[in-house]
């Protein structure tokens, strides 16, 4: 009690300096609490946004791919997944899997008529199965006619064709002098290794992205069937056994192969006996889990099946630098807070040393009267803790006030920051007790560390100092 009384009264007596230090500690505490909650909320929102818009919990892609899948970028074409159906069957068998969506990135040309002339409009797109795509990325787009004609909850039957972004259409107006209209008949041109394929199609609709406008303004959509038609992703599952035996016997010899045509058993083929194989053009399958926390477990179990010819990439690995933005912001806040506390610790340490110097006679008197070193140490430690813990509480109250102010509408962010960080919109804060405990632990630790040297100075004051005071 004596120590506390002395400490508190000394703080009041030197209130000018103490208010300065207390303000710094309060500000640092505010930064820890609000900054941590802001950064962790940004990280959570960023993760959710990336999962909800681009990657799902993880992406399945071809085992022979040299690069990681990158749904944001179109500069690294991935090889097709060898047997998309088998992978989807494997996913269906996993109880943790909620939904999945095969898709591919590609680019092509839209050929449209304008003033009697054919004009080729370039576009990049995701090839998707609309209903599956919506089941994983339900919130990504806003369009008046639904996504390929599907209503919310993937009600209805998907229309075939393409959808382009409003921004893309604006670019066509700017660069080609006209815009496409929903329902307009078009021809799609796809470039393959063998030349250019074409298919007749139509513009199903124009959408405006609700998230990541900086990305989705440039990405358009093509339904998977149209994509398969355009790039001829279809084939025969297996030839009759007699054909296979003949081809095997021919052993690659051209004349022997053509000679098979004269074989009465092989010369004609009943096409109705052939089984068509659905060769998907999908290069990626985004997988959404019921529980995000099981992502590593599900990825590991899927990767075990080597016959599928696939690899898996977690959402953060597949999202490139987008996932790093929130982590970078968090690191920045922690570094800034650490620097503030370093400055606080140095100022605080110097102030206590000045206090010790000014109070040499007082300390000497206490020592002469019978106060031992631990008593002197206690006074300074209690002073430091009383001031800093009180200041920390003020900082926490300020943080609570700020958190309450942003509780309803979230923290408004500049559009550019918001788009890159969380895909757009205000940041909803996720409050937890941890940052408060962390702030208190930091303040107590800094108080004790900053007091070590001044206390050693104070305890080295001898009782003689009291006698020397004149």
């Amino acid at each position, binding site marked *: 009690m*004596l120590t506390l*009384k*002395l400490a508190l*009264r*000394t703080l*009041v*007596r030197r209130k000018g300096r103490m208010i300065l230090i207390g303000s710094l500690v309060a500000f640092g505490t505010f930064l820890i609490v609000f900054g941590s909650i802001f950064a962790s909320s940004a990280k959570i929102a960023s993760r959710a946004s990336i999962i909800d818009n681009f990657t799902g919990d993880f992406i399945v892609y071809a085992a022979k791919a040299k690069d990681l899948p990158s749904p944001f970028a179109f500069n690294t074409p991935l090889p097709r997944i060898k047997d998309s159906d088998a992978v989807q069957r494997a996913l269906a068998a996993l109880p943790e899997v909620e939904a999945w969506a095969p898709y591919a990135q590609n680019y092509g040309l839209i050929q449209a008529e304008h003033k009697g002339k054919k004009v080729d409009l370039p576009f990049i797109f995701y090839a998707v199965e609309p209903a599956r795509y919506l089941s994983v990325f339900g919130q990504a787009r806003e369009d008046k006619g639904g996504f390929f004609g599907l209503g919310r909850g993937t009600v209805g039957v998907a229309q075939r064709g393409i959808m382009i972004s409003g921004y893309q259409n604006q670019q066509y107006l700017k660069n080609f002098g006209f815009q496409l209209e929903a329902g307009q008949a078009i021809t799609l041109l796809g470039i393959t290794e063998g030349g250019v394929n074409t298919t007749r199609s139509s513009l199903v609709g124009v959408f405006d992205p609700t998230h990541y406008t900086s990305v989705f303004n440039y990405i358009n959509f093509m339904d998977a069937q149209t994509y398969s038609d355009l790039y001829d992703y279809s084939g025969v599952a297996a030839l009759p056994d007699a054909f296979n035996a003949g081809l095997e016997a021919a052993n690659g010899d051209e004349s022997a192969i053509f000679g098979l045509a004269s074989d009465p058993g092989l010369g004609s083929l009943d096409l109705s006996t052939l089984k068509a194989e659905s060769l998907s053009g999908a290069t990626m399958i985004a997988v959404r889990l019921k529980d995000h926390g099981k992502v590593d477990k599900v990825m590991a179990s899927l990767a075990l099946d080597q016959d599928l010819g696939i690899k898996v990439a977690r959402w953060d690995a597949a999202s490139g630098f987008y996932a790093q933005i929130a982590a970078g912001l968090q690191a920045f806040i922690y570094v800034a807070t650490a620097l503030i506390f370093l400055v606080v610790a140095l100022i605080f340490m110097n102030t206590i040393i000045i206090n010790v110097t000014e109070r040499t*006679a*007082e300390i*000497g*008197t*206490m*020592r*002469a*009267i*019978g*106060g*031992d*070193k631990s*008593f002197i140490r206690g006074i300074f430690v209690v002073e430091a803790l009383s001031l800093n813990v009180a200041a920390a509480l003020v900082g926490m109250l300020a943080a609570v006030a700020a958190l309450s102010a942003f509780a309803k509408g979230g923290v408004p962010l500049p559009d550019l920051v918001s788009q890159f960080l969380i895909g757009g919109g205000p940041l909803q804060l996720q409050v937890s007790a941890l940052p408060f405990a962390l702030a208190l632990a930091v303040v107590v630790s800094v108080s004790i560390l900053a007091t070590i040297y001044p206390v050693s100075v104070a305890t080295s004051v*001898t*009782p*003689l100092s*009291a*006698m020397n*005071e*004149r």
Partner: protein
Amino acid sequence: MPVVELKDVKKQYMLGQTRVDALRGVDLEIEKGEFLAIAGPSGAGKSTMLNMFGCIDLPSEGLVRIDGTEVNRLSDKELTRYRREKIGFIFQSFNLIPVLNVYENIEFPLLLRRSLSKKDRADLVLRFIEEVGLSDRLRNKPYELSGGQRQRVAIARALVTQPLIVLADEPTANLDSETGLRIVELMRKINEEDKTTFIFSTHDAHIMREARRVVRVLDGRIVTADAAEVR
């Protein structure tokens, strides 16, 4: 048995590059209940001797025995405990703790002892506050008191633990002569009533006259230790 015994005590310290011989072989015995003045000009060694009596400085050579204990051999912790239990200090500049009021300043050494109940502490504090005539100033802070009043508080603080020895280093130096004389009269009255040993340093002739014995110090040596010359 004397309460204080110095035998061939020498004290040297360095002042920059210069060696200062503060005490050059002092022999002195002080009996319980004495009211003793150590007199001498500035730099004669008065304060150094008081520091030895108060266990806040140790000799370079020689022996210092307080209440039969050879204090040279005690650790810092033991010396602190010894001061807390045996010695009361009165300082030239009063040295009250600025954030504590009169009552709390006097109570302070009792709180360091941690051996008394709150009621016993209060009884002692009030008794000595009354003795120094400051019963109406209990809640005043040191800065609200005159120099004489502050020194009275310091006297009460030194006495409240009922020590074996009270040491006063030039207790009247910062007071006007009339107040100084009253302070010494108060000390003397307490000495007579409680038989507490008082040792004080001074170079004021008026104050010296109040002492029963005067030890004169010059250049680190005792030149006279004579009771006959006074009173």
